[in-house]
């Protein structure tokens, strides 16, 4: 890594508009394209401070600052357009979380990188609507939170309550949500309202190690730990009435359920296995990167293809996982209100993926090209009339579900034409970490965090309360800042804001 004084570093950065910065070539060695990032004034300060800290003499270890990571990604072979940082960006393994990059499928040198997908493959958010209102749920929210907690196993090492054997798992990995449909855990309409229709067709369970399958099997249908949660939320604000009504959200106070989860230990193992393979492939094919964490392999190499197939299987795992939790949530609600999920109108509004690489067609320099789009901590946000979004959202644009942090609000945005041009149809995914987990544990007290939620009138059930401060709102950037930046930059449009009334956490 090049080490320069902070003021010299700044010469490579240029503010091109109120919400967008350009990272010029030369900021890191061998950049093939430029980088850029989207911020508002507050996020900008965080971003530059992080860079400044890393420029202090003697600063070693830990993750590179987000800006540097964006620039390192811009140096990967085959990248097209720009390496893009979204407003919720923070340092991660190889790629920053909140970094998206697209690689040309027709360039034989192009690479796929597990670091560009992340360890929690197809971590994502699903939003269920109900026809209940806050007044129906407030009086019973403690019981409802308990009921959800009883139905959905949470926490590190939790085990699911949907019986599965090894053969079921193989089928689920190949079929994704089609498996859940076949077994009757979800509704046909759920599949319709899911990115990729809940199934990646190139999944190949044979490319997944036994170890990953062993880790994954008991965990299917569990929420997991870390930043994952299930929340009962109420609609707090509607910015775009027509788009909201297309999603079945009519008025303020309507109750929705948000499920944020991923592929658990399964995806983690798939990523770990791939990284080992890729280091070998890099040596063989003489691929050089600026950062060892950016392990990658040519898309067309055996390692690259094997990873894409295993990643697709992990993505399918995550969809089955969220589908199983959808089933359990519907059961919990139906029991509580003594009715059926149908009568509660508990439809899936949408299901988005945060950590995934997909083959998509985009217009680059006026020509249509087939790209492998890596989105890590970034949500796909396709504009109205895009053929890959469900027919119900053809007029509104793809719904983008942005989960906030525990106790803060969440948003639904819609994709825009401008986002399609500027960011390959991508936008933010959440609040984005501001403090590292270790730092949060040192600085915050878990009792205070829980008390604060209590004061806000939020019912909470946690499997491991002593880790709750890692996920406290103080550890994160302000999700409203993040969403407002995306809205102001035009890469997605605000539609609905929700606030939580009950939280289930790992």
């Amino acid at each position: 890594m090049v080490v320069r004084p902070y003021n010299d570093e700044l010469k490579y950065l240029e503010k091109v508009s109120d919400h967008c910065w350009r990272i010029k070539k030369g900021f890191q060695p061998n950049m093939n394209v430029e980088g850029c990032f989207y911020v508002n004034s507050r996020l900008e300060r965080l971003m530059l401070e992080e860079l400044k800290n890393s420029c202090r003499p003697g600063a070693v270890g830990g993750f590179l600052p987000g800006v540097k990571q964006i620039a390192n990604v811009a140096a990967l072979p085959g990248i097209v357009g720009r390496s893009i940082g979204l407003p919720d960006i923070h340092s991660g393994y190889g790629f920053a979380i909140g970094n998206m990059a697209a690689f040309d499928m027709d360039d034989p040198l192009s690479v796929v990188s597990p670091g560009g997908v992340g360890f929690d493959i197809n971590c994502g958010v699903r939003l269920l609507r109900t026809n209940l209102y806050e007044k129906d749920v407030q009086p019973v929210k403690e019981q409802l939170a308990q009921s959800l907690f009883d139905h959905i196993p949470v926490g590190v090492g939790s085990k699911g309550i949907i019986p599965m054997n090894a053969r079921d798992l193989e089928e689920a990995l190949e079929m994704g949500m089609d498996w859940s449909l076949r077994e009757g855990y979800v509704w046909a309409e759920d599949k319709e309202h899911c990115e990729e229709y809940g199934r990646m067709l190139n999944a190949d369970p044979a490319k997944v190690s036994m170890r990953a399958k062993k880790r994954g099997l008991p965990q299917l249908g569990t929420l997991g730990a870390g930043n994952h949660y299930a929340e009962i939320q109420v609609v707090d604000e509607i910015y775009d009435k027509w788009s909201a009504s297309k999603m079945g959200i009519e008025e303020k106070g309507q109750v929705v359920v948000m499920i944020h989860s991923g592929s658990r230990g399964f995806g983690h193992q798939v990523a770990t296995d791939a990284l080992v393979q890729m280091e070998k492939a890099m040596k063989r094919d003489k691929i050089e990167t600026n950062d060892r964490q950016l392990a990658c392999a040519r898309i067309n190499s055996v390692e690259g293809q094997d990873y894409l197939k295993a990643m697709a299987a992990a993505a399918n795992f995550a969809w089955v996982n969220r589908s199983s939790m959808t089933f359990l949530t519907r059961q919990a609600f139906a029991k509580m209100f003594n009715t059926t999920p149908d009568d509660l109108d508990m439809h899936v509004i949408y299901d988005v993926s945060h950590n995934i690489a997909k083959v998509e067609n985009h217009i680059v320099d006026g020509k249509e090209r087939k790209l492998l789009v890596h989105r890590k901590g970034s949500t796909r946000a396709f504009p109205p009339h895009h053929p890959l979004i469900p027919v119900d959202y053809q007029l509104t644009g793809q719904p983008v579900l942005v989960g906030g942090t525990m106790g803060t609000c969440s948003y639904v945005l819609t994709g825009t034409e401008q986002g399609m041009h500027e960011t390959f149809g991508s936008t933010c995914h959440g609040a984005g970490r501001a403090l590292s987990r270790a730092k949060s544990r040192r600085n915050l007290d878990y009792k205070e965090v829980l008390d604060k939620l209590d004061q806000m009138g939020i019912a909470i059930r946690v499997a491991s309360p002593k880790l709750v401060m890692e996920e406290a709102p103080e550890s994160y950037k302000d999700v409203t800042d993040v969403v407002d930046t995306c809205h102001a930059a035009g890469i997605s449009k605000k539609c609905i804001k929700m606030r939580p009334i009950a939280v289930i956490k790992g």
Partner: protein
Amino acid sequence: MLKLKLEALGHPTPNDVALSNRKEFASTILWVEDQKIRLYTIEDREKLRNIDNPTMWEEGYMKYCADLNMPPLETQQEQLSWILSHAVRLEFLDDPAQFASINSKQDPTQSNGKQAHQKVQSIFDGKINVQDKAFVDGVRLLATKLDVPHHPNHLLQLEAVARVVHERLSPAAKGRQPILGTPFPFDTGNDVVSSNDPALDLPMRILRLLQIQSLRQLQTHINETIVAVQNITANPKTDTKLGKVGF
């Protein structure tokens, strides 16, 4: 749309054709006949040439419309539009090779026409000659009765008629419940159509809505099929004994 057609025909002032003015309308008709259609010999165009003598011109125009086989169209705009389309078609047929690079493979009217032809032929099992004049007249009459706009290819028009009958007049359509729900204003949606040409905006929005409607039907069929299969395969189970909340 008129402007586009006039441009395509190489009209000297496509922007300045004022439709409200009958005289200007007359001179445009004359220009098209003189330059493009050439249905009459030069001598026969005499009556149309009398732009300054309205009675004489109208008489000539009536005959001209009949000779062109123009369907009964009410407004001046519709008539001009039809005549211009006719002219464009003739222009194209004069030298199709010239446009081969643009639409040789998927010229919409041609391929649609062929498809429609095959479709109709297969329905009638070859027992009816669909190019027969009586058949054509029958289709045209049906279309007039149902207010289906004119199309030069009567088979495409027949398809449109069939669609109207299916959507509005069939027994199934009559018994159908009206669609409930909040209407979505299609002209104020998030979708940008074309910012520079309002004349294209509306038809494009309408076409997109039709496309969405047929997609919705397809998706509903898919969902119904899935549900039918689920009735056989689905057997969701849970076993709370397996559950373990981690720490």
